[in-house]
């Protein structure tokens, strides 16, 4: 019997479509998490107050910051989930190798990030409407600025990238845990330990500096490059570890 040639890209595509259907639960939890985040946002996501000259002013700010943050956590959890044994094993019931398995996972995570990021940004509209209709938001004063599509686009791209980046971290953490259970304890210990160390040495925590590297970047282009490279590194590291792992032991 002659062997058919096997096209890696074909397999990755089939796996990706398979995973969209197989992981539909992740999308229902996305909806719930965002609804929960909207609920939490109804009291305002930030506030500012001042008391001067007998005039006491309190400002409440509304935005979908909380929704984006919750979606980032969702991305992390989703990524960790698909590195666990049951999910890795599913691929081996059909046609796969470890590389296609990870590649289709990455494409799936990217798709999920796009969906999560776009819905998170759009959630602002829902927040406004719920407040307006049900919560007596007459106090809500709006900027006379019109809705800038360009700003929204930038925000959405950034949100999607943040979620995708965090999901790559989740994938990496999940992979480490698969390599050795010790990491479940090890990673938090490492994290907290490094903060202690930095505290003792009286310098800014590494974690802070790392966060600033991404959050303080004001050029969208450079931000995209930073996230792209970091995400690629995390995924590459994960793939190389998963590539040697036995399944169905």
């Amino acid at each position, binding site marked *: 019997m002659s*062997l058919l040639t096997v096209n890696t890209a074909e*397999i990755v595509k089939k796996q990706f*479509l398979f995973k969209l259907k197989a*992981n539909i639960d992740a999308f229902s939890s996305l909806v719930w998490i965002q609804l929960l985040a909207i609920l939490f946002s109804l009291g305002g996501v930030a506030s500012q107050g001042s008391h001067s000259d007998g005039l006491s002013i309190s400002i409440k700010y509304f935005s979908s910051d909380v929704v984006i943050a919750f979606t980032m956590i969702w991305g992390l959890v989703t990524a960790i989930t698909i590195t666990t044994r049951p999910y890795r094993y*599913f691929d081996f019931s*059909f046609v796969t190798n470890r590389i296609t398995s990870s590649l289709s996972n990455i494409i799936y995570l990217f798709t999920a990030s796009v969906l999560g990021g776009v819905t998170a940004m759009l959630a602002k509209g829902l927040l406004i409407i719920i407040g307006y209709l049900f919560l007596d938001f007459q106090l809500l004063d709006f900027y006379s600025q019109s809705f800038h599509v360009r700003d929204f686009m930038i925000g959405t791209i950034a949100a999607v990238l943040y979620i995708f980046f965090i999901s790559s971290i989740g994938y990496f953490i999940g992979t480490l845990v698969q390599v050795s259970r010790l990491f479940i304890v090890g990673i938090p210990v490492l994290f907290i330990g490094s903060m202690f160390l930095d505290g003792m040495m009286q310098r800014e925590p590494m974690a802070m500096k790392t966060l600033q590297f991404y959050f303080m970047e004001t050029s969208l282009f450079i931000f995209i490059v930073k996230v792209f490279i970091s995400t690629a590194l995390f995924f590459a590291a994960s793939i190389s570890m998963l590539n040697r792992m036995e*399944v169905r032991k």
Partner: protein
Amino acid sequence: MKVIECTDLTKSYLRKRVLDQLTFSIEENKITGLIGRNGAGKTTLLKIIAGYIKQTSGEMSVFSQKPFNSLLVSAHSIFVDDQMSFPSPLQLHEILDAAGSFYPNWNMPLAKRLFDYFSFDPKHYHNRLSKGKTSTFNSIIGLAARAPLTIFDEPTTGMDAAVRKDFYRALLKDYLAYPRTIILSSHHLEEIEDLLEDVLLLKDGKNHLHVSIEELKEWAIGFKGAEEALMNWTKDTKVYYKNQIGRNTVYAVVKNVFSEQELQQAKAENIEITAVCPSDLCIYLTGETKGGIDDVFVDR
């Protein structure tokens, strides 16, 4: 063409050697039965062939490739056992669709007909099936995929006798219609004797015997008679099994190196000659001692 070539394959877990310098090869388009005791290394071997786990040392070549991480091997093979897992949100009919998308030779009409024959509900979920139903469903997938290398690792676990019969029959019919290389590991050799072409017998992780089913049927012969009489006959050949039946009657299974005349002679000496079915033979061949369970109950 040799689909599987295995040379000095060893797999150790910590100190235990599950596979020990195993060497064999399997030809294209044959049904081979993989037989052995629990723990003989059958499942481990099959998982190495499927590319799920790696050997500790030695060579394993499937379709001339190393199976671990080979997309070629994965695309041309399927591994069926009761542990085959599918994502829980998928209904049974969706799993069939998924299988169809991955396997180029997938035959959906066959899958659907088997599916209906065994009374599956398309909207049911895989993790809700009973043990027997799970094995049946997994086996349907294994059959309909028509993968050039199809591996069944104890596929009939939990199946009732009627379903087992149906499964073997279906396997044979589809194999004849669409030949492929099949490896079937089972504890019920007596049920699949008529199905197999070759038998690979594993003992202690080694290749104990690899012969065709016909050879296996003729491999050994059973002598029953007086102990002294038997002694004569059995001294020149390997004794696989010996058991005391009556006060002076012994039953022994020995390698059949005798000609027709010699056997007639034995009959003349009041020794009963019986054929040894492959199933029993394999039990004797892989037994630890020459006796049987009865020895446990011998009064001490």
